[in-house]
């Protein structure tokens, strides 16, 4: 008995769920395959959820989605070995509904999302890995799973199988990932009683804080650390480029262990019980690393298509947006009675180009290279900034003017004035 569907979605992460949800809601016969034991069981994310992208898929998501805390405060830390210099932005605006950002726990969030997808009528099959795409010449006509009797057919296959999409690679849509285009992130969740979390961050019942960190914690590698508050736990993690890990010969685990001993971080997680430890890749190659994203009978969405904005730590929203646009494309073609050919599916690319997704990725397209070739952003500068702060804040009889002179001297000593200006310019250009 051969099963045939209008659409098969591979993967039940945010991108796959968005696509499957909208397709099923539009009345298409949808099959979704997920290799994890349940949606979310294998997924890793910080995790910050950006409301806007989800709202466009499920407008009333706030009614029942498992949201941990809405973000009222964002901190940015620049760390050296002993200290950090930070800035904090907290606003009462963030406490007005509808909230813009939330912390979530992906295992729960993905499960919730998936329930919506199934209620919309899609058929979900878990614990099943898609091992191959079935081809008719150049056209994708279905999938092969790792189970007896595992050929299933569809008009369109949507690859939402995340970073390092093995399927795309197998089918030749996608070259091998370049280690300098992917970050490896590790993350732990530390359980702490709700009251403790609130006390430590001076926040109310549902309020949350995000701390982003750069500096010595990444031991000179290109990357960042992060710390988020959940309802009764704290998420802490760090991610660096895979190529840097290879060069540095250190492991992400060791990095995180080291980071947890930092005098500014240790007390925040003190007394917590570690609930889970996970590691995951993040495609951070940006605009230039985007592969071919559609062809005859297939579309690619989310991390699989490298849709991550590393500078702003956005991924799931790009995943949901691309999932939505893919679904809209397929629905439009169906309604027009058109075939799922590469030419017709180019509509998907148009929709992406029109959206914030491609616009943002384009804006930062040079960022990865600049950071790569300027390791001082992660080592020298954090150290100098911290030293400067220390010097200014230590009352020791030295006048402030001399201190300033010394600080400037330090900066120039480590890097020529020309270099400093060059760095600033490069950063400015990348952000432009």
């Amino acid at each position, binding site marked *: *008995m051969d*099963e045939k569907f209008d659409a098969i979605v591979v993967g039940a992460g945010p991108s796959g769920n968005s696509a499957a949800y909208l397709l099923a809601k539009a009345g298409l016969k949808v099959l979704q395959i997920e290799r994890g*034991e*349940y949606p979310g*069981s294998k997924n890793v994310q910080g995790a910050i959820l950006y409301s806007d992208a989800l709202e466009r898929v499920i407008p009333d998501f706030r009614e029942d989605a498992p949201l941990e805390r809405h973000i009222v405060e964002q901190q940015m830390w620049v760390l050296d070995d002993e200290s950090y210099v930070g800035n904090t932005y907290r606003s009462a605006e963030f406490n007005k509904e509808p909230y813009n950002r939330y912390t979530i*726990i992906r*295992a*729960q969030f993905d499960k919730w999302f998936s329930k919506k997808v199934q209620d919309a009528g899609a*058929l*979900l*099959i878990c*614990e*099943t890995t898609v091992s191959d795409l079935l081809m008719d010449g150049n056209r994708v006509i279905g999938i092969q*799973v790792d*189970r*007896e*009797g*595992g050929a*299933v057919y569809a008009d369109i296959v949507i690859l939402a199988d995340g970073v390092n999409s093995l399927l795309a690679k197998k089918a030749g849509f996608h070259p091998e990932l370049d280690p300098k285009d992917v970050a490896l992130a590790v993350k732990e969740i530390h*359980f702490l*009683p709700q*009251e403790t979390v609130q006390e430590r961050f001076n926040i109310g019942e549902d309020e949350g804080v995000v701390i982003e960190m750069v500096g010595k914690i990444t031991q000179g590698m290109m990357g960042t650390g992060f710390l988020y508050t959940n*309802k*009764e736990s704290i998420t802490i993690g760090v991610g660096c480029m895979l190529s840097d890990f290879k060069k540095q010969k250190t492991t992400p685990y060791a990095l995180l262990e080291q980071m947890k001993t930092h005098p500014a971080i240790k007390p925040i997680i003190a*007394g917590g*019980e570690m*609930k889970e430890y996970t590691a995951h890749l993040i495609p951070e190659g940006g605009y230039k690393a985007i592969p071919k994203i559609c062809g005859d009978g297939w579309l690619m969405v989310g991390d699989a298509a490298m849709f991550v904005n590393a500078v702003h730590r956005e991924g799931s929203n790009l995943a949901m947006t691309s999932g939505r646009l893919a679904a809209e494309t397929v629905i439009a073609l169906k309604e027009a009675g058109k075939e799922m050919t590469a030419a017709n599916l180019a509509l998907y690319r148009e929709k992406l180009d029109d959206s914030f997704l491609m616009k943002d990725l384009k804006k930062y397209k040079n960022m990865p290279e600049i950071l790569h070739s300027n390791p001082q952003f992660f080592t020298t500068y954090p150290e100098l900034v911290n030293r400067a702060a220390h010097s200014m804040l230590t009352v020791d009889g030295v006048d402030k003017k001399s201190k300033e002179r010394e600080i400037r001297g330090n900066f120039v000593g480590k890097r020529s004035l020309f270099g400093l200006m060059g760095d600033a310019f490069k950063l400015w250009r990348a952000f432009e």
Partner: protein
Amino acid sequence: MHIVVCIKQVPDSAQIRVHPVTNTIMRQGVPAIVNPYDLYSLEEALRIKDQYGGRVTVLSMGPPQAETALRKAISFGADDAILVTDRAFAGSDTLATSYALASAIRQIEKDIPVDMVFAGKQTIDGDTAQVGPGIAKRLDMLLLTYVSKIRDIDLENKTITVERRAEGGVQVLKTKLPCLVTVLEGTNEMRFATMTNMFRAARHPLKVWDKEKAGIEDVTKIGLKGSPTIVSKVFAPTPKSVRAEIIDTESNQPKDLAVTLLAKLFTKKPDLAKDIAKNAS
């Protein structure tokens, strides 16, 4: 051959955490799984079906989410699934649970007579190993617990021969059908579901029974009312107050540490030296 397999959905106890302040169980994010011991029973039942033909019906009592466990059983090859769910069952202990399940099995029997019932050796949350025997007694069925092998089933004479784990050995027992069997862990290995069965599981119309449909006649026998045992206290194990005496020497060389330790040990427990000498010889 019609076999009913009782399965329970349980929180994965490996992932359960206790709130350090309130000492309550934190279930948040703890995945629910099919009680691992029940899978041995299910697989054994499926093998009997493969060999002798017939049907396997899975039965679970629990909250609506237990549906997932039943679907999983279908993906392995069970033919039908019944979820018994009703607020009235909340707080049931093993006596009440076995009453409810036995009653549901009687309802199942109204359609097709039941030849065998399988239950897990025990659950990983309740951990009592009582529900299986309880169901057997309530249904007046013969009981075979801790079965490590089903040697033979004689369909004509309705007899079954099994190996049963006893404390110091294995009993080979022969009895008559219908009977209730609980299966020892490690007896078999669960099969890998086929894609056809995965589709069947995803689409299977589950039967959901409330207490009336499950044929509960006496509501005082279920839920809290029907449970003789009462949990009076849940608490965290108290840590022993005395910490270990840490052996410390000036040099802290392994050899010195070992010698110092032995001196202390044998001063405190002079008899131990003799015990060791006796054992070692």
